[in-house]
């Protein structure tokens, strides 16, 4: 595919393939042709890179926004206002969903989830080709395989280096975060309610103690569905958005000039609309995270 003329199909594929590194029988590699041999123990390096980079950016922004010698006497300025606005927003949401239960982890968790996902989603607004092509050229320049066999064998051209930019269009990322929330939910369920009543909650409803297996299956589906729907909702929305950006980009590269011009307009319109999805999905993920953890803290009897 690498040196072939770019086709519509290869263009789309290129944009939907992660830079995957994993262990093959011959050792660790990032060769896209050997992904099948890697099995489970493979990592989407691009997704993880952007995820960590944006997470670190979030920490950095929120750390540096507060002046060193901060006190309550000085009026907040600049970024501090923005940071405090974010925190107030999160506090409000936690307050409304969590009520009187005191848990200092919830608000920082919600803030991290919201800002981090917002930043990751915002990567969708960077033109689809910009960063992947740049990364491809850098990778080829640094480690491309030459005719003499130097460099990394599988980087035969800039196009052979895959680089997905939006981490939230990778189900591993969204489900990974949902998984972390899921673990926290189980942890707090057991911590707050005790192991016994947590198990009872999973087995004694809705049909009482004579139908424990049925209860367990029903409750388990309910229980597992929460993190999966949480992760897939974010993934689905962002993946679809990304897909439409790619399709609009196709109009620019693979058709006549009038259609290309139309593509420009459509790209703008979709980008504007997508800002809404970007913020909304970040908010929904945050709100559901808070809600699931609030459920874990509920000790009411059914």
């Amino acid at each position: 595919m690498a040196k072939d003329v770019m086709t519509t199909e290869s263009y789309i594929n290129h944009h939907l393939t992660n830079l995957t590194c994993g262990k093959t029988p011959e050792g660790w590699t990032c060769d896209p042709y050997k992904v099948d041999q890697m099995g489970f123990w493979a990592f989407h390096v691009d997704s993880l890179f952007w995820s960590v980079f944006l997470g670190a950016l979030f920490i950095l922004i929120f750390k540096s926004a507060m002046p060193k010698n901060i006190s309550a006497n000085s009026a907040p300025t600049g970024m501090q206002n923005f940071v405090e606005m974010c925190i107030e927003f999160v506090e409000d949401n936690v307050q409304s969903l969590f009520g009187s239960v005191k848990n200092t982890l919830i608000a920082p968790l919600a803030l991290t989830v919201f800002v981090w996902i917002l930043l990751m989603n915002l990567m969708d607004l960077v033109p689809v080709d910009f960063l992947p092509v740049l990364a491809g050229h850098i990778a080829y320049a640094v480690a491309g395989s030459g005719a003499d066999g130097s460099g990394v064998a599988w980087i035969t051209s800039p196009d052979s280096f895959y680089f997905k930019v939006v981490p939230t269009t990778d189900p591993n990322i969204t489900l990974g975060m949902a998984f972390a929330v899921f673990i926290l939910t189980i942890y707090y369920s057991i911590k707050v309610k005790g192991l016994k009543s947590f198990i009872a909650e999973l087995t004694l409803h809705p049909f009482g103690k004579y139908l424990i297996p049925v209860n367990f299956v029903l409750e388990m589906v309910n229980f597992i569905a929460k993190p999966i729907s949480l992760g897939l909702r974010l993934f689905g929305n962002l993946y679809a958005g990304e897909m439409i950006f790619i399709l609009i980009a196709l109009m620019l590269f693979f058709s006549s000039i009038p259609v290309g011009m139309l593509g420009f307009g459509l790209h703008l319109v979709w980008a504007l609309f997508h800002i809404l999805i970007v913020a909304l999905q970040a908010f929904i993920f945050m709100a559901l995270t808070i809600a699931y953890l609030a459920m874990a803290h509920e000790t009411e009897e059914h």
Partner: protein
Amino acid sequence: MNINATLLAQAIVMIVFVAICWRYIYPPILSVMQEREKKISDGLEAAKKADDSLEEAQLAFDQELDKAKAEAAELIDKANQRASQIVGDAKGKAQDEAEKILASASKTIENETNKAKEELKLQMSEIIIDTTQKILDQEISTEKHDDLLKKAAAEL
């Protein structure tokens, strides 16, 4: 789009970031915000208190002013009364004095008048006696008829 170890890695990364935020980012910002919120509400309360006490002071001031005004008016009233009393007294005294002077003057005048009348009577009686002597040709001597003359003078 395979599910692979990325999922676990991301879960771990997320837990790390949440932990950092939980330990180092969120609490200092929140504490500053809460402290400031408290400060602002304290300030507002203090301002309200100051407003109240200002109102109270204004009220007390108004009352004092009213009292002072009333006192001043009373003082002026008293002063006026006293002044008119003094003037009245002085007037009365002057009138009395004038009356006294008038009375003594009229007494003097009466005395003088009586004296003059007395004298006039005596002179008149002498003239009458002279004239009568002349008329009666010494028939009646002054010594003999002194009693008669005195009676006539008293009758005049």
